[in-house]
């Protein structure tokens, strides 16, 4: 028995070593950093242990802005992208001709590079001295005033960021939901149809409960993904996100480490742990809600 166990541990050893070195140790390290006050990365010294780093981060206007941006992004994009994906999947599921062609088209953004998509969005939204951008041309055509979506007012920038995020996360959700819809037993619909069930009731009483585990999965991963948003903002607004007022929590962590104001691993660690606490809380709330509404 002991020998058998030993063998198992031996097989697990490479994975454990790598996980330990690159996951567990850094996690502990982050926690330690976050408590070391006045840490100097050059001399690797600090002069105290306490919660000052947390207090600093929580009072930093840039951090508060990043938290606000992240929350707005999460609250708008997660529900909206999930609902949109659901509608698109329902549509894809009900059409017969060219179904696979449409599925491919809807999946294309998923295999496209984030920065490339960002470039396209720049072309669509950016206003320069020489051109108005596609969207502004449209707005003008309808008789509206041009808006600078990239360097203009906060709401316009947030709109573009949300639009962009939804665009990027949509294909994966459509893919998951289309396959979830296709796996619902056809006979359930036939049975419901024979019982003269209205279309809307079929949707709410059969379709939704049957695909609820997948919806729930998408909501949880959607929340986590959106809280970790960073590259999307960079793709649109460049690397100096604090100046643009469009920083996210992960962006703030990055800036604290390597940005212009960088070199503060203690502040970065504290911010990262605050993000961890937020995501954990939200996920727990999600799990509690799902217990009531998700059919497994």
């Amino acid at each position: 028995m002991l020998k058998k166990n030993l063998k198992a541990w031996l097989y697990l050893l490479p994975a454990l070593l790598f996980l330990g070195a690159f996951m567990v140790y850094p996690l502990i390290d982050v926690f330690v950093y976050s408590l070391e006050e006045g840490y100097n990365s050059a001399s690797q010294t600090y002069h105290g242990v306490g919660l000052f780093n947390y207090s600093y981060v929580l009072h930093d206007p840039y951090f508060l802005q990043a938290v606000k941006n992240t929350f707005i992004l999460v609250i708008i994009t997660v529900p909206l992208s999930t609902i949109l994906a659901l509608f698109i999947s329902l549509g894809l599921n009900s059409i017969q001709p060219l179904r696979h062609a449409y599925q491919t088209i809807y999946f294309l953004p998923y295999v496209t590079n984030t920065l490339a998509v960002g470039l396209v969005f720049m072309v669509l939204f950016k206003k320069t001295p020489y051109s108005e951008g596609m969207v502004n041309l449209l707005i003008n055509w309808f008789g509206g005033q041009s808006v600078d979506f990239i360097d203009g007012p906060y709401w316009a920038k947030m709109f573009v960021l949300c639009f962009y995020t939804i665009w990027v996360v949509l294909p994966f959700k459509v893919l998951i939901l289309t396959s979830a819809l296709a796996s619902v037993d056809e006979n359930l619909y036939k049975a419901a149809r024979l019982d003269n069930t209205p279309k809307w009731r079929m949707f709410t009483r059969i379709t939704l409960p049957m695909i609820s585990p997948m919806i729930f999965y998408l909501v949880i991963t959607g929340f986590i993904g959106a809280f970790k948003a960073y590259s999307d903002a960079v793709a649109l607004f460049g690397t100096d996100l604090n100046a643009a007022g469009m920083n996210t929590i992960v962006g703030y962590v990055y800036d604290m480490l390597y940005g212009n104001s960088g070199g503060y691993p203690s502040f970065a660690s504290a911010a990262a742990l605050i993000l961890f606490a937020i995501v954990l809380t939200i996920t727990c709330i999600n799990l509690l809600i799902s217990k009531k509404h998700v059919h497994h």
Partner: protein
Amino acid sequence: MKIRLENLTKKFPNRNKKHGEYVIAVNDFDFEIPSGKLIGLLGPSGCGKSTTLNLISGLETPTEGKIFFGEDDVTHLPPENRGVGLVFQNYALYPHLTVQQNIMFPLQNLRGKDKLSKDEMKRRALEAAKLVQIDTLMERKPSELSGGQQQRVAIARALVKMPRVLLLDEPLSNLDARLRLQTREEIRRIQKATGITTIFVTHDQDEAMSISDQIVVMKDGVVHQIGKPQEVYDHPTNLFVATFLGTPSINVFRARVQGEKLYIGEENVLATPGIQDRDVICAIRPEGFLLDQEGPFTLGLDRVEIMGRDTSVVCTHEAAVSEVLRAIVRTDSLVDEEKNTVRFSLLPRKVHLFDPETEEDLPFEV
């Protein structure tokens, strides 16, 4: 409610055009199902039984022909307006709803003047549940029920809206052997109690024979014979029906009629008055063999299987078409297993002759 099918035909477009433009699932059905009876649609897999059921339910629309419920032409009526209850082969219970919610589901769809109060719905659901004896399981989910119980829930859900016609698609195929026997009696009892015209599909002839008022034997989309089970068993109109019905199955031989006498091999085994001299296919039910030391029919003896009440004598014969020949005799009659041969005389009404070309029945005077 009687059901009439008139020249009913269903063709499906063929995926592989090499094999023709269409697959004909149901070919020119023309028969009437009397009101309040239990009808078994019987045939091998792929014979169009389920398609027929779907046509009656309205889930499929016929290519040609008409369907009447009583005097109403329902051919183009959508399924939701036909008032049929359908029990699916896999039961199709809503897995996230309790038994009670499943049974109440059809009632909750009623609108306008038919709308029921909550209490009335509960009362009717309980009534249906009592009929199929699952009224103690109302709060369970389908996954917490056995196959037989799920089956009953499906029947209750089909019955609760008081359908004009009840359709059952292979209702017993997902149950184990013992439960199958029990459930088929149950279906019979429920059908008798409600008096709803019921059609069920099966590939198991035992099942169809045991509970149906009438059976419809089908093959390749064509109806071969309709009648009371015993009638069809005793007087099959062609070789397919004869071989499809009965367990163990009927024994088939190449044979010849000469001078109104039936010859199998060199032996004259039976008088067959009324048949011209010709080659025939002879089919003999296992119970048509009578052990007889002096009998005219000699078969090679392979082995003897004792199955309690009966004994199955497994035989061989050079003129046999069937792979295995079986005679069923009473256990108290002794077969001398030391010998290589066994002799039988035949019960004339258990012997059927068919044309080797058309495979149609050739009747002779018994």
